[in-house]
Structures are given as C-alpha cells and as structure tokens.
C-alpha cells in the first residue's frame, strides 16, 4: 500500500478532490498547512509595522491506495492542481505497511479495495 501526500494551493483542493472522485477515489484526508518554498510570501503592515511572512497557506491531502493505482492518483492531482506558477506544490510517495478500518476491523489491501467506489 502506498501513501500519496500532495501539497497544493488551497483554492485547488476542491478540484483535486473532484478529480480523485472521478477515479472512484473517495477516501481522502485533508490538512490545512502552511508552506514555504519558491513562492514568495507577503510583506504585511499593521499600524505601519512591517511583518514579512514567508509561509503561505497550503492544503495537504493524503490518500492511501493500492500500489498499482499510484500513477493514476499522481496524474489526477497533477492535472487538477497545476497552474504553472510558483507554489503549485509537491507530491510525496511513500510506503505504508498496513491499514486497518476501525469500524470493521478489516486490514490491508482489502480496506482499500473496499473504499474505491461509492
């Protein structure tokens, strides 16, 4: 099983979720995060005092899938999240050793098979 983590622009998250749903992938977890990278932050002003903010709001989504679906997921995210401007974000791929569904107690690939359609 593979965990795909993608950091994307917050305004793109809905599109990404829609794109995944079209592939039949509904099980996703989303985080509100802040990110710094190549995209520049803002110089803000409060009562004339300057504050340079280098981290920008980002959304991270995490989806655990069966190994063979990874490329599908990556493609769906890439095409829904890309604007071409700095700050589009990254996707990380890593390995998960086991998955357990709390409600049913099922384990492993079975859990993921289960959740791919609805």
């Amino acid at each position: 099983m593979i965990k795909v983590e993608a950091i994307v622009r917050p305004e793109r998250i809905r599109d990404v979720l829609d794109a995944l749903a079209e592939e039949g992938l509904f099980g996703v977890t989303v985080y509100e995060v802040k990110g710094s990278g190549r995209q520049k932050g803002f110089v803000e002003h409060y009562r004339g005092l300057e504050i340079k903010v280098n981290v920008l709001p980002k959304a991270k989504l995490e989806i655990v899938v069966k190994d063979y679906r990874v490329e599908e997921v990556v493609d769906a995210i890439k095409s829904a999240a890309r604007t071409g401007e700095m700050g589009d974000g990254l996707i990380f791929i890593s390995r998960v050793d086991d998955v357990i569904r709390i409600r049913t107690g099922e384990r492993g690939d079975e859990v993921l098979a289960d959740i791919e359609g609805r």
Partner: protein
Amino acid sequence: MDTSLQDFMNGSNVLFLIWGAVLVFSMHAGFAFLEAGSVRKRSVVNAFTRIVTDWAATAIVYFFIGFPIAYGINFLGSAAEISSAQGFDLAHFFFLMAFAAVIPAVISGGIAERAKFYPYMIASAILIGTVYPFFESMVWGQLGTLGGADGFLAATFGAPFHDFAGSVVVHAVAGWIALPAILLLGPRLLRYREGKSTPLPVSSVPYIALGSWFLMIGWFGFNIASAVTLDAMSGLVAVNSLLAMVGGILVANFISKRDAVFIHNGALAGLVAICAGSDIVHPISALVIGGIGGAVFVKGFLYANEKWQIDDVLGVWPLHGLVGVWGGISAGIFGVTSMGGLGGVSLASQIIGTAAGAGIAFAGSYLIFGVIKRLAGLRLTPQEEQIGPDLIVHRSRAYPEQEMV
C-alpha cells in the same frame, strides 16, 4: 416663553436629533460586520476599511455639497452664525449625513471582494454630491417636486409623495444605485462555473448576526428621529418599526426554513419596508408590510443571485432596492384611513415617487460608474482577486497571528 425654557426646548430637540444620529451612525458598525461576515476571510479587512472611510468621504461631500443642494443651507459662516438655536441645523445635518452614508455602505455590500479601492470610493462620493441630494431635495428638501406640500404630485394627486424615513429616498435609491455598480463589475471569480451557481462560503455567521443587531438597534434612531422635533415625536413610528421588523423575521424564518442569515436579513427587510409609512400606518399593517418585505427579500435574493446570476454579495439590491420600492408603495396602500391609517397619502403619488427614485438612482449610477470604469477600471485583476483585497489593497490579513508562523 422665557428664554431659558426656549433654550431648554431647543437643546432637547437637538438632543433628539443627535440621539437619532448617533444610532444611525452605529448602523455603520452594522454594515461593517454584516459585510465582514458575508465575505471570505481574504476580504474582511477590506470590508472594514471601506465602510469607515466611506463614512468619512460622505461626511465631507455632504457637508460641503450634498446638504446645501438638498436644503439650501450651508455652513460657511462663522461658528456663531451657523449654530443658532443651539446648532439645530448642524444637528439636522449630522442626522441626514448619516442617512446619506447608507448609500456607499450599501454599494459596498454588493461589490465586495473584487472592487478596486479608490475608483469605487470616488464614484460613491460623486453620487453623494449629485444624484442623492438631488432626489432628496425633490422629496424632503427645497425642490419639493415630489414630496412638498405644494409640489407637483401634491397638486396632481391630492397628496404629496410620502416617505417618512426613507424607504425610497435612502434605501431604494441606495439599492438601485448599487445595481449598476454590481453589473458593471461582474461576478466574483468562480462564483458561477459553466453557467452553474457555485456559492462561495461566508466567513462568519456570528459577524453577520452582530452586523444585523447593530443595524436593527440603530434603525430605531433612523425611523423615530425622522420626526426631527420632539413635538412631532410619535410612539407609533417606534411600534410600527418594531412590528415590521418582527414580520420580516418571522416570514424569513418560515419561508427559508430557519436559515440564520436570511432571518437576520429579514429583520432588516422589514425595517426597510416600513420606513416610508411608519408614521401613518396601523401597527398591524406594519406587521404585514414587514412580512411582505421579508418575503420580497428572500425571493428577490434567490432570483438575483441564482437565476439571473447577479453576484450581489450581500443581496443589497433585493434588500434595499426591491424592498425599498415595496416600502414606498405600501405606504400608499396601508396609509389610508380606510385601512386604519392616518391618511393624507395617495397611491398614485407613492408609485410615481418611488419609480422616480429607483429610476434616477439607476440611471445616475450607471452613468457615473460607467464613466469611472472606462477611466480607471473598477475591478482587481484576477490574480489580485484570487489573493484577495486584504493583502492586495491593505497589505494585511484579518487574523495576522493565526496566519503567521
């Protein structure tokens, strides 16, 4: 009457007006929070800043231009000259200036989240110096064409256009001024996608509630102090305002199935509707007028924003424009003695006066916003809009501590 009693009475009348003016001023806090709660977080600072600076711009333009146009009184003489009768004229100016400031506040709610700062401010200021006082003069002021006891409508239909506290002069005019601004600006990015409405979430229901409370509370000053002097004071106006508000709340509640935002706006719809006739209709009529006002708002909002896809963020055109028109007309229906009202009102005059207000407002606004659009542009660029006016226009965020690391 001896002088000290006269001074006392003058002072009391000034207090009456100022009591009202301060309440109407406090409505501006309401406009600010209503807008701040209704927009997304990226536009909150912008909402606050626009509402407060517009108040300031209105005060100046109305002091030097608007009030003199409407009432033929200016304040260029010495302090001693302009403050006779304990400064009654000045107090009256303050009260009416607070009415005028409703105009930019209403526009602001319609064009939120995407308008440039100064072009909109300048257009508003021009309107406060031209269209608004011109129509005001025709109804309440020196022209009196529509509202004067011996104006054109009074002569023709037996009764002048009756608009006690401004359903038309203030609210309908504001709403119909806002409409062209909203149309010329166009909807927010992603508000409608491929012809489908995709609502953008409001940021805070509590702020919407807070804004409504400030408006509801302040509105009693708006309506009641429209009597101008204490000898014309009337408890009827107060209770009519109360029951119209109540009608708006309850009808909005029922037809929207307990939708919190609609209910809080419904209260305001009731209050917009009753302004015109609050001094002449029976309280039970007020309840009906306010209730219908609530329904007009709810339905109008859905038609405008869903069907016609006009992105009027706070629904200012239905709320002030449509309900204001209903208010003007309803005074002619329910104000007559056969409906338990105090009479002295003509339905024909009401319809003509109301139509004139809406028409002049729409046309004047279209012209001015149109010209400014051509000269300076009204709208942020898509990239700027995406980031939001708070960072673009004010280089700040609503909740700096949260956003920082």
